[in-house]
């Protein structure tokens, strides 16, 4: 869509009230004014001049329009309706009362245009609207007269931040539109002048609407461009995404997110800002200006395009091209599209996006359907140059070694056919992500101590679920035991043993989150239970939560009947690892035959990553308790983490001999193989672990990684859909 169209409420939109995604402003304008031609007229109305005190502050403007590039998106999600209303209101008001105008002494009297309207003296006390409108008009005027428009001080117009933003944006576009024949310096000077007069600065945030009309427009806007009705999966993610803080309530795209990120990114915005500074200080370097102007233009375009929720839109190459242009990474020079020689900040990330945009199909469609016959050279050039443009960046990627995400994404997109289904693929990947997020959220809840009960528990109502749970546990049916134990604690929330066993079952099932949650409940009921404290220490160590782990291990010592004396009577505020280790060593010396002390010491050494000492401790403990499967696993894990993978596997095997359904040990086996690069083997072990506990999320993630490392992308889908049967058939042990 051409800028012209956007700006002038162009001809494409004939009926008022019609909504056309390609011409938002036009339709708005039409709705408001009933016809687009009127707006055109207004633009042509040229108020004559009346002098006003001028500040002569030569384009000192800190380059607002120019720094209003990627960074500005961060500041305010663009609301075109806001722009439209403000701008139109400005013009509307012009209708009501003739135009006071704002000139300064530099305004030359050789006004080439016929004074069509008699103007009053500038009424600086007048309603802000009037002053503003006249000011805006003079800006417009100056275009026609070829007269440089110089900044002037205006009374406080009470422009809201949103208004300012609109004015800024609109004026930059308008300037480019009007001054198309002028040099770029001129354009920017003009805009700067306008903005500095209006005291529009960079730091603008869009506020709530202050005007009724704005509200109406917003409503109208949302009606026409709001979430598309219907069960289109694209809606799901759009809606969800809209709720994401990044969006500020407006559905925002990943491009905007990216741009936003870059706005916040120190050096990126500095880069833009620097450019802006250069421009504003009248040290206009010829090279940069055209780029910046184009950037500004395309940024506006990109913004408006971004308002379109259609995922096709977002992902189209066209849109990305526009975004890219807006960031100055590519410029149109001599009818060629050239990547900017300056390393633009968003360079790599746009390419990154490009990689994922995949299908040219969308871009094709878009370009054909919606590309206006507008004269904008660069748009046409893009259509023709697209092939050329693609080569440079995309080829680089196709040569790359195939990667997890990139490939998957590209494949997903490539598999889609025209239009909808490709959007669907992307949307469904996103849905999947969202599901993942809710699952993760669940997990994170339990890590904060909130235990998550299973639904549909067949053991609820069982006469003695605890006993049942213990039986099942003994038999090694961990998941079943979990259910039974859940039934027990639902029945008797104060049953410490129930909670404890539940926690252990979860840990053995390779779910530390739930294990912690259950153990915390057990600790509430029975604060001095040593096994509980140890288990908590272990789980937290696994989760790399070192401070918490230390706390629990210390508590173990304190509450121990025998070693309680080793530690000082008052609990110190902050625990230092070194001190705790000393206490434990003391305790160990006290009774060298107590396996438990050695076990706890082993865990402690894991915390501090003194793996050799940890291994030693565990081995000592194992001499005393050779049939403790959990101990073998601890030994194995320590060895694995110190990259003695061969030994680790032996230890795990011992554990599994003692407890064949030890899910954790199976998963750990998989990890050891994977860490050694033996991905095919690791897959088998993961699958085995998952067969025993389909809820082991860690194992699913690891399986996925191993699958792609082993180049078994064909099975990725089975993995994502958690199709265990399929996986088991394919990867038996």
């Amino acid at each position, binding site marked *: 869509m051409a800028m012209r169209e956007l700006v002038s409420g162009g001809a494409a939109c004939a009926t008022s009230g019609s909504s056309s995604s390609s011409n938002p402003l036009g339709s708005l304008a039409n709705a408001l004014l009933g016809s687009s031609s009127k707006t055109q007229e207004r633009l042509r109305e040229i108020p004559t001049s009346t002098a006003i005190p001028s500040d002569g502050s030569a384009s000192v403007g800190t380059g607002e329009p120019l720094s209003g590039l990627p960074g500005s998106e961060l500041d305010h999600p663009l609301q075109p309706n806001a722009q439209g209303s403000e701008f139109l209101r400005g013009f509307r008001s012009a209708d009501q009362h003739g135009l006071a105008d704002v000139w300064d002494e530099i305004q030359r009297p050789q006004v080439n245009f016929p004074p069509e309207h008699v103007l009053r003296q500038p009424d600086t006390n007048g309603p802000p609207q009037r002053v503003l409108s006249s000011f805006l008009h003079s800006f417009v005027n100056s275009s026609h007269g070829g007269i440089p428009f110089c900044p002037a001080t205006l009374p406080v117009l009470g422009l809201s931040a949103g208004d300012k933003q609109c004015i800024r944006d609109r004026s930059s576009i308008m300037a480019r539109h009007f001054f198309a024949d002028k040099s770029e310096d001129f354009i920017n000077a003009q805009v700067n002048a306008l903005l500095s007069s209006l005291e529009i600065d960079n730091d603008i945030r869009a506020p709530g609407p202050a005007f009724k009309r704005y509200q109406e427009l917003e409503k109208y806007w949302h009606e026409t461009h709001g979430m598309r009705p219907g069960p289109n999966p694209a809606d799901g993610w759009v809606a969800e995404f809209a709720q*994401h803080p*990044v969006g500020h309530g407006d559905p925002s795209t*990943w491009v905007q*997110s*990216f741009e*936003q*990120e870059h706005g916040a*990114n120190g050096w990126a915005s500095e880069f833009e800002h620097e450019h802006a500074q250069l421009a504003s200080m009248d040290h206009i370097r010829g090279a940069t200006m055209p780029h910046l102007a184009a950037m500004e233009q395309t940024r506006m375009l990109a913004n408006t395009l971004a308002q379109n929720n259609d995922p096709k839109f977002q992902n189209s190459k066209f849109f990305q091209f526009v975004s890219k242009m807006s960031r100055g990474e590519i410029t149109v020079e001599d009818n060629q599209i050239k990547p900017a020689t300056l390393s633009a900040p968003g360079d*790599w*990330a746009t*390419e*990154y996006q490009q*990689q*994922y945009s995949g299908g040219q199909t969308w871009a094709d469609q878009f370009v054909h359907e919606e590309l206006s016959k507008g004269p904008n050279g660069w748009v046409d050039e893009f259509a023709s140059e697209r092939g050329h443009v693609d080569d440079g960046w995309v080829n680089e990627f196709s040569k*790359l070694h195939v*990667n*997890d*995400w990139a490939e998957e994404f590209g494949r997903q997109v490539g598999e889609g056919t025209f239009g909808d289904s490709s959007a669907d693929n992307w949307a469904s990947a996103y849905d999947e*992500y969202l599901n*993942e997020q809710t699952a*993760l959220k669940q997990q994170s809840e339990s890590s904060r101590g909130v235990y998550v009960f299973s639904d549909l528990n067949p053991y609820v109502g069982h006469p003695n679920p605890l006993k049942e749970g213990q039986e099942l546990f003994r038999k090694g049916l961990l998941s079943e035991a979990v259910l039974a134990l859940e039934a027990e604690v639902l029945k008797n929330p104060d049953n410490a043993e129930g909670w404890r066993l539940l926690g252990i079952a979860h840990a053995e099932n*390779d779910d530390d989150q739930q294990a912690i949650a259950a153990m915390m409940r057990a600790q509430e009921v029975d604060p001095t239970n040593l096994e509980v404290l140890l288990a908590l220490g*272990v789980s937290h*160590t*696994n*989760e*790399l939560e*070192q*401070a918490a782990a230390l706390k629990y291990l210390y508590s173990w010592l304190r509450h121990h009947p025998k070693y309680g004396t080793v530690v000082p009577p008052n609990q110190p505020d*902050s625990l*230092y*690892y*070194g001190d705790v280790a000393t206490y434990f060593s003391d305790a160990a010396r006290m009774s060298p035959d107590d396996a438990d002390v050695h076990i706890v010491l082993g*865990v402690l050494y*894991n915390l*501090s*990553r003194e793996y050799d000492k940890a291994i030693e401790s565990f081995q000592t403990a194992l001499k005393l308790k050779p049939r403790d499967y959990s101990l073998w*696993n*601890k030994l*194995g*894990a*320590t060895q694995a*983490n*110190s*990259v003695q993978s061969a030994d*680790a596997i032996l230890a795990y095997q011992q554990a599994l001999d003692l407890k064949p359904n030890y899910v954790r040990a199976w*998963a*750990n086996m998989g*990890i050891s193989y*994977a*860490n*050694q*690069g033996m991905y095919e083997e690791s897959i088998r072990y993961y699958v085995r672990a998952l067969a025993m506990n389909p809820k082991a*999320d*860690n194992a699913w*993630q*690891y399986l996925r*990684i*191993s699958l*792609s490392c082993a180049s078994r992308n064909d099975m990725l889908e089975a993995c994502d859909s958690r199709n265990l049967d399929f996986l088991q058939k394919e990867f038996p042990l």
Partner: protein
Amino acid sequence: MASDEKSVQLKSDALMEQMKIHLTTDAGKALTKKIGLVYQLNIAPKKLGFNEESYVVDLKKGEVKKGTYEDGKPDATFSFTDNDFIKIAAGKMNPQIAFMRGAMKIKGSISAAQKFTPDIFPKPAKM
């Protein structure tokens, strides 16, 4: 690494340690051959960009060092929070989704960034 006197100890620290050792193994050496890039990871304890600890994962030499990269410019620099990095390394969070959400920031070469996948990192075994 023995005593953590600091009040804020990053979880990622453990992962980095593991990575360091991992790179001395055959599998780790294969990684340097396969990738051959230098990454810098800026990890913040809670909020992106605040109190960052930097690590250099040098997959050219096969080293992991704390601090920023001194011998030139890293091929790609990432910023995450502690938790997010752990998730990504474990495969729990998709890096591209993380990027889109703004949970991960990238600077530098895009192709280098794309090679930064969860499988680079060894997984911790659980006791």
